[in-house]
């Protein structure tokens, strides 16, 4: 024993978890959905993903290197996750320059201006997406029809998403039973054969990723389950009241981005609440807002807005909703 002994405060051992590992765990969870997306939308999906990931990482690199001038943070994996999630929220035929603008908003505006990882109040990928949706409404809502690996990139044949078909149809006074014949069957939607954002289409692939995230203890069940339960309950009630005017819960869960949002976007560590009780309230809020926007709002899809609105409530939830402390209620059995 040549060296002196080291002295420090306990604990003297540390778990194996690191920020980087958690982030790469999320990336692994997203792989099935990425593969499904390539399977249905062809190489366009690859181009969008690559552009988004590369530009997110590049912007973070440039900002840290030249503006903040601190040690580089890009290997923590968070820019990679933001890039992937942003791509998953885009149609697979969107031009490259729009993706770059969206990545800039995501990373530079929504994340780095607040101080980088851990400090941003709003989900960066969603801020980017919503910015793009408002700035480029046409490109952001022309969805390629899934045509397999040979689907073109910007020249792909486009069509409407199931949610948009229903929204438009209801506005024009058509009944739901008629409209349901124009949209894919639940089985097709489950496996991803429908129009929509790159990463949202395949419920099956997203659920596979969910199981992985739970198994690896990267996320807990609270947020996704409370969102989905609220959606099912809320749309279920509406559907029971008038099945010709309101779509059934299964349709609401499978169509659109609710699974992507509930499992991957709403559970973003930085922008979600930090105790189980607050997580459940946050999830319920997202579920309610999503249904309200979908059913009565101007947009056919409302998950992004719902999550961003609830993001704003997170500090409040963290401050006022507290876990039940040990020994708070005296129980004498």
């Amino acid at each position: 024993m040549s060296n002196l002994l080291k002295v420090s405060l306990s604990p003297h051992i540390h778990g194996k978890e690191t920020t980087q590992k958690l982030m790469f765990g999320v990336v692994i969870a997203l792989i099935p959905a990425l593969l499904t997306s390539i399977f249905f939308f062809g190489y366009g999906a690859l181009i969008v993903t690559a552009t988004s990931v590369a530009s997110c990482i590049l912007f973070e690199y440039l900002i840290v290197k030249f503006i903040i001038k601190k040690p580089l943070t890009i290997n923590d994996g968070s820019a990679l996750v933001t890039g992937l999630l942003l791509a998953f929220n885009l149609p697979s035929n969107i031009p490259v320059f729009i993706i770059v603008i969206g990545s800039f908003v995501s990373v530079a505006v929504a994340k780095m201006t607040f101080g980088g990882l851990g400090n941003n109040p709003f989900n960066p990928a969603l801020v980017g997406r919503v910015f793009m949706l408002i700035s480029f409404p046409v490109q952001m809502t022309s969805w390629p029809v899934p045509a397999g690996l040979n689907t073109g990139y910007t020249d792909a044949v486009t069509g409407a998403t199931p949610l948009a078909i229903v929204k438009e149809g209801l506005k024009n006074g058509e009944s739901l039973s008629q409209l349901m014949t124009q949209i894919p069957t639940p089985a097709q939607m489950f496996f991803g054969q429908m129009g929509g954002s790159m990463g949202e289409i395949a419920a099956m692939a997203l659920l596979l990723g969910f199981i992985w995230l739970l198994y690896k203890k990267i996320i807990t069940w609270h947020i996704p389950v409370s969102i989905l339960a609220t959606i099912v309950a809320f749309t279920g009630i509406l559907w029971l009241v008038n099945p010709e005017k309101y779509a059934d819960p299964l349709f609401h869960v499978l169509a659109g981005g609710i699974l992507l949002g509930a499992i991957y976007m709403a559970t973003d560590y930085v922008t979600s609440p930090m105790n189980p009780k607050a997580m459940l309230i946050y999830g319920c809020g997202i579920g309610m807002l999503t249904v309200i926007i979908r059913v009565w709002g101007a947009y056919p899809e409302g998950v992004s807005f719902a999550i961003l609105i609830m993001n704003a409530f997170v500090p409040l939830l963290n401050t006022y909703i507290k876990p039940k402390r040990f020994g708070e209620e005296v129980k004498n059995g």
Partner: protein
Amino acid sequence: MIDATGFRQTAVYIDTRGDEWIDTIDRSGDINREIKLSPEEIIQKCLETGIVGLGGATFPSHVKLTVPAGKRCDLLIINGAECEPYLTSDHRLMLEKGEEILTGTTILMKALRVTKAYIGIENNKKDAIGHITKLAEGFPGITVYALKVKYPQGAEKQLIKALTKREVPSGKLPLDVNAVVHNVGTAFAVYEAVQKNKPLFERVVTITGKSVPKPGNYFVRTGTPVRFLIEAAGGIPENTGKILSGGPMMGKAVSNPDIPVVKGTSGIVLIPADESLRNEMMPCIRCAKCVMACPLHLEPYLLMTLSEKGDFERAGRERITDCMECGSCSYTCPADRPLLDYIRLGKSTVIKMARKQMIK
């Protein structure tokens, strides 16, 4: 001399020659199950023989056995859950001295005037559970329970919750939920004191670590320098970075191996040099893993921030003083944040503030 806490203490060096025992101590190996003393005499005996809690806190046992007026005790809990990872002293003791522990438990039951005792053992010690359960058939009122393996299962309040669903309120004692907890080591010491008239000067100490040549449990007299113990286990390995008195989660890193074993030394753990340095702190990603890990359902990330910023008033309101410093938050943090260090700082400040208020 400097003890495990790092403070200088007055100490007496005993120069021993040979090994002489006074006649009043029964040194035979026979197991004596017949309890002759009355409850009061048992408590007096514990006081005279210097019995303290051997789980690590070394709280005087005679105080714990005296139920104050107005309080009621209906259950004795014997802690066989092993307070920390790496340590196996309680496990070994249960396997080798099962009958003595059960007799000790019966003595404690008599002193507390209770008819019921639970022994909680973690599920990964199947042999001990089997052994003690079988022996307990011959001891009325004692039931053995297998507990889920988790840290900190052996913490007093957690153990009571796991066995009885009762939650000890913040700032209160187990007696407030009518229970008293003693460690298996204490039960054994009580047996030796009451039945064999032997004062507490020996205990089981685990000596372990990844690079220790002969890790194991040793029966050690208090006062033995830790260095002797490590030598008995094969010497201090070349790559040792830290020597811990206690377990890896709550133990203290000692500054030199000449400190003595005391009654509360449950183990000596050697940590290799490459594991004895902390990783660099990263920004909090607000993953809430610390909140999920906290056995007392506190919010470590918040307590750390409040302590860092000096908002001790709010830290107090967020019940920072409930923290038992188990280390689960720092252990689990993916960003390697020193949560517990800051919580300790905040906790001591809040306690000081509360004391000042009391004086006013």
